[in-house]
């Protein structure tokens, strides 16, 4: 049943006509053309589809369109501003915290949400926060370095 759902996407209001039980990841990728959010398992097991809903991490493969009605959704495409990278993105670039890049959007979003709450985290707290995100290429050490340095550099994110 098609519903009309409005929410804030990367700071701008959008309205989508689509079934309310449709998973957000398909709405983002298909209806809204934002393909930076990836699909790796469709079962909440890999974190590739991580986005932020009201600044909390959400797995968009397991979050419905209806779930985000009236809320604010932030995806990887919404992080950079005025041609300037977000500090977390910049840290991932600096540390080469990726190889194939398929996990990267989800990693950055998960790290962003975590650092917002806890910029001065210990290494083991970062590990715990990132545990739900899989990286098959083995960029883990660099991802941890990037998250750590992003936290230190700015004392947190916006």
């Amino acid at each position: 049943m098609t519903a009309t759902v409005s929410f804030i996407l990367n700071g701008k209001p959008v309205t989508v006509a689509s079934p309310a039980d449709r998973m957000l990841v398909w709405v983002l990728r298909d209806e809204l053309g934002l393909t930076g959010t990836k699909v790796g398992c469709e079962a909440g097991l890999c974190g590739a589809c991580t986005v932020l809903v009201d600044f909390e991490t959400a797995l968009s493969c397991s979050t419905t369109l209806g779930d985000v009605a009236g809320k604010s959704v932030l995806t990887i495409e919404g992080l950079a501003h005025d041609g300037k990278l977000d500090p977390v993105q910049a840290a991932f670039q600096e540390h080469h915290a990726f190889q194939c890049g398929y996990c990267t959007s989800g990693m950055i979003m998960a790290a962003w949400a975590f650092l917002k709450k806890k910029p001065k985290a210990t290494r083991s707290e970062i590990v715990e926060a990132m545990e739900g995100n899989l990286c098959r290429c083995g960029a883990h050490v660099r991802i941890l370095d990037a998250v750590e340095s992003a936290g230190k550099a700015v004392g947190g994110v916006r």
Partner: protein
Amino acid sequence: MRRRDFLQGAATGALTFFFATPVGSAPIVPTRPGTYSEDFNAYLKISADGRVGCFVGKTELGQGATTVLAMLVAEELELDPAQVDMVLGDTDLCPWDMPTGGSLTMWHTAPVLRGAAAEARAVLLRMASKALGAPVSGLTLKDGAIWVKENPARRTTFGELVKGRKLERHLGKVKPKPLSECTVIGRSFPRKDALAKITGAAKYAGDLRMPGTLHACILRPPSQGLTLASADTAGAERVPGVRIVRDGALLAVLHPQPDTARKALALVKGTFEGTEPDVDDVRIYQYLVDKAAPGQRVVISRGDVAAGEKRAATVVEGEYRNAYESHATLEPHTSVAKWEEGRMTVWASTQSPFVFRDAVAEALKLGQDKVRIIAQFVGGGFGGKLVGPGAIEAARIARQVPGVPIQVAWNREEDLFLDGYRPAAVVKLRSGLDAGRGAITFWDSTVAGVSQGEAELSYEMQANRYQAPAVPGLHPLKVGAWRAPNAHTNAFARESQLDALAAKAGVDPVTLRRRLITDARLLRLLDLAVETFDWDPAPGPTGRGIGLACGAWRQGLVVAVAQVAVDRTTGQVKTERFLEAVDVGLVVNPDGARQQVEGAITQGIGQALSEEIHFKGGRILDKNFDTYLLPRFSAIPRIQVVFADNATMVTQGIGEPPVVPVAAALANAVFDATGARVTHVPFTPKRILEALKLVPSK
């Protein structure tokens, strides 16, 4: 358009350099006879606007090919790698190349590319010399401009030099810069794919959204070995917008929305026929041994094994096993195909654009010139995307829906079901040491499941025999090349067995290897590893949990040292520290090479500790990452990587070597921690607990 026509077209108004593959660099991937030698390997294009384009038939899997290949071009042409535009993996634009695998890019393609760029430099300098009326020796080349050293105002640019000219040079004679003059090679450069990947802009095959795209979900049999016999599609056809395509045993449900196509597929009822294999993940090892037995033949034979056994004072017998393992790239296999004007174009997640092209052409009975593969960013390969069944599926469907882009994106269950696994294997080993200086008097391997690839290392052995079967269709499941195929199975057996011999003879594992190693390069690497780890080896088990293993992939050598903690109650192994000393000759991009080693160590940890395909008959029981267990952040140790200082040796590939000794180093570390010898990869908590039970109490 055929490639030759294209090359002629491309040469107009640009300076094009062709270069053939160098003689003497024998490809390990068999090439079709008569095709490769007369073809070009890659080429450069300097456009009238001064941009330097580099076209190579490899793909970017995350291994950093885009960056390191651009560095080689930049080195010779005095550019920043950022000034080189890379075009990878488009079969219409790039000359034929072998797959992106086997660690071939740096070993095979790189020297050719450097040679091409060196010649481009020479030609440009000669042209500038004429244009500026100054001798070549008096010219300076930098950032796409050439000027007279004494008078920088007298200058020209690449763009001005090539404007309106058509010039082809076949390469041969020009030597690349000597290492002492290199300013790019040996330095770490920012990855060229960084910005696209951290902003979400990078396009993988599944991210393409061509207007009118239909997403195709394919009906799968419940078990391997079965194919579709009949199907009832009435339910699916009631879903608005659904379209069914059938081609033989291939049945696909098409819809503009991928999730709707998937839901509609669930409404299709199929019956299947065929025979599924009668074996499971427990019985597989005996199955392989029994099936292999009649076909066993000696493939390595040096010295007299029987006589060696008589001379042995210490004999160790071991049986080493490994399970089927999936590539499990985070991006499942994905392709988009479009049939238009008698040509099939496939945008694919691929390691082998040209293999995909030929396979699609064959499946559709088209000429190769009627198929174009365009590689996208690839979300991991590791050998899994060397072959393209998904691309063929997309093309077969697209052939029936002319003009419509058809996307086939396997979901995780399909990806785990349809993957060509790392083969399960059994390696039986008998070997012995003499009583004197601890020489290996005999080494006897009988193997089922893999071949002898990288079974030997430069260890002195008085007698050595390796028997493996030539049994076609040995494996009940589909197998394929998994990063350093055969090598990790053989290294796990060999390095575990050496450790067991050392323990039984009461020598430490490093001393034993120092005595046996005949190659000075490996010996130096062993010392480098032990020193960097700051480890004082002692006969095991010492309780410290430190283990070592050596491995090779062609000329690339690796020594791995692992430190683990074993929880004796749960059987959990925690990798605390992992070091690899690596010798791959001249390291072109140190940070890029380091990333490859870090990734390989991480994959090796997954291979050793948790990754296993569970199956019953033809049913693959692992459907997602809840049971197929990849290493997560908590499994990652402190990782150290050191490279041997060996800049005079030609660069070897870095993709495969570092994964080879990982499982063996971890098994040896488990032994050092507990006295338990784990012989079955992956050594899951259950297998660790079983091995612990076998340790004699003191």
